[in-house]
């Protein structure tokens, strides 16, 4: 195991200064997520326009560097995408974290892929996977307009 793989500079940087942090003025969708094991919390604000495009995506919450950075990077990558594309990106990310070596998303360019792969170090730290996926599950919940709070204990 290698701490440098987990705490890459980009992670530390996003963890310290998360992008798109705070409640945005206008949003159409919203969801809350919670990791009861450690107390990480996140709230997602999503603004879909009439063309079903992600016009804005912000978050609030508190948590470890991994969960903050992962959510921050997520907002960067998903903003501007269509709802369809956003859903695919979320699935591709979760697939990468759990199963595969690479990110296979067609919705992302090479730079974006490199960025998302900075989160792959978490695969060696199974207890931290839930930190990395909390924001993504919560976005998914917001897009699906689910009422319940996301609870990481509900995922394998």
């Amino acid at each position, binding site marked *: 195991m290698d701490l440098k793989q987990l705490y890459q500079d980009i992670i530390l940087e996003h963890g310290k200064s998360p992008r798109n942090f705070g409640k945005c003025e206008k949003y159409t969708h919203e969801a809350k997520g*919670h990791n009861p094991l450690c107390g990480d919390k996140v709230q997602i604000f999503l603004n879909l326009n009439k063309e079903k495009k992600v016009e804005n995506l912000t978050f609030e919450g508190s948590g470890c560097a991994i969960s903050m950075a992962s959510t921050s990077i997520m907002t960067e990558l998903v903003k501007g995408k269509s709802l369809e594309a956003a859903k695919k990106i979320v699935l591709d990310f979760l697939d990468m974290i759990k199963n595969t070596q690479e990110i296979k998303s067609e919705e992302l360019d090479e730079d974006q892929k490199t960025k998302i792969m900075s989160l792959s170090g978490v695969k060696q730290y199974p207890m*931290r996977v839930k930190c990395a996926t909390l924001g993504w599950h919560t976005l998914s919940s917001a897009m699906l307009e689910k009422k319940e709070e996301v609870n990481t*204990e*509900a995922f394998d």
Partner: protein
Amino acid sequence: MHIDEVKSQFPIFSKKINGKQLVYLDSSNSAQKPTSVIKSLDNFYKNEFSNIGRSIHSLSVNATNKFEETRMSVKKFINASSKDEIIFTKNATEAINLVATTFGQKHIEKGDEILITELEHHSNYIPWHYLRKNKGAVIKFAPINDDGDILIDKFKELITSKTKIIALTHLSNVTGTIVPIKEIIEIAKKKNIPVLVDGCQSAPHLKIDVKDLDCDFYAISCHKIYGPTGVGVLYAKKEWLESLPPYIGGGGMISEVKKDKVTYAPLPEKYEAGTMPTAEVVAFNESIKFMQSIGIENIIKHENELTSYALEKMKKINSVNIVGNPKNKAGVISFTIKGIHPHDISTIVDEEGVAIRAGHHCCQILHERLNLPASARASIGIYNTKEDIDILCKAIENCRKVFDIK
């Protein structure tokens, strides 16, 4: 694994009891443990111990993974649909109490009926008795015949529009009756009544498939399946576990805790409060592997042969009376000897190294039904042999000698 090699897996059989080879015929009470289970405990405590779930250091991650592996093994062992349907309890009794309490809280009102049978172990009666006492429920006992078989027609008649739940054993721990549980569940399902199956005696000796049975709840006792003490399993359909209120409250089963509000964790954690029997659950995985290494078909075949052999031999002994004569019988053989009280039998055969149980075996209702103050019980495990039965029969003969009974 060949059936002849099984006994050598159990270290206790190298022990002498009263100078005699141990003949253990009390497996319905609790089974002996194979080396792999004992080693797993030893290894876990020596090299890997940590509490699970709550910490994220390496020891805890490893322990949590092993704990969850057992859950997956149990899921497969009984063919559940999801690992979330497998709740670890301290024993089967707690599993049944969990259902009675939470189901009772939500679904039982004064006058509602709970249908159980005359075969039930106290652990599948007292939890329901509490609902009678505290909520005014009515308990009906489905009758059996003298053979120890449930009278299905009477059973059907006892189901009314007020019947809220049916709870019954899969295998009697006194008569060895294998209850036609699937048939009964089908009857219940037609009327939309949930069914709890007490699987304590069946899980070690029959093939269990909760999906095929379509039961709502299934309670298991790990120490009877060659596993450690301190662990039981409740299987319950997910929709029940999701909709019923929580049971024991405390650390690990919550989501958000405020001074005025509490929300609960998702399944299975919702029903697993406080520190779990971590090492014991981890070791229980070895019990399942042990069962699988022999194969349930081989287990059934071996135990059926032994049961037939024992019944035939015992029936030939004068003044021995076998309790019950059910259509399908597993290796639970209760008996009496005219003129000798079961306690005296137990003490005398113990002198020959034979461990059997005497008393009412937590089934006072059944003993009353059969007009017996008590009985002696020889119950068979996978490690028993024909030689064991021969020694038992000789020891029974000795009882007659001591009491000078012809």
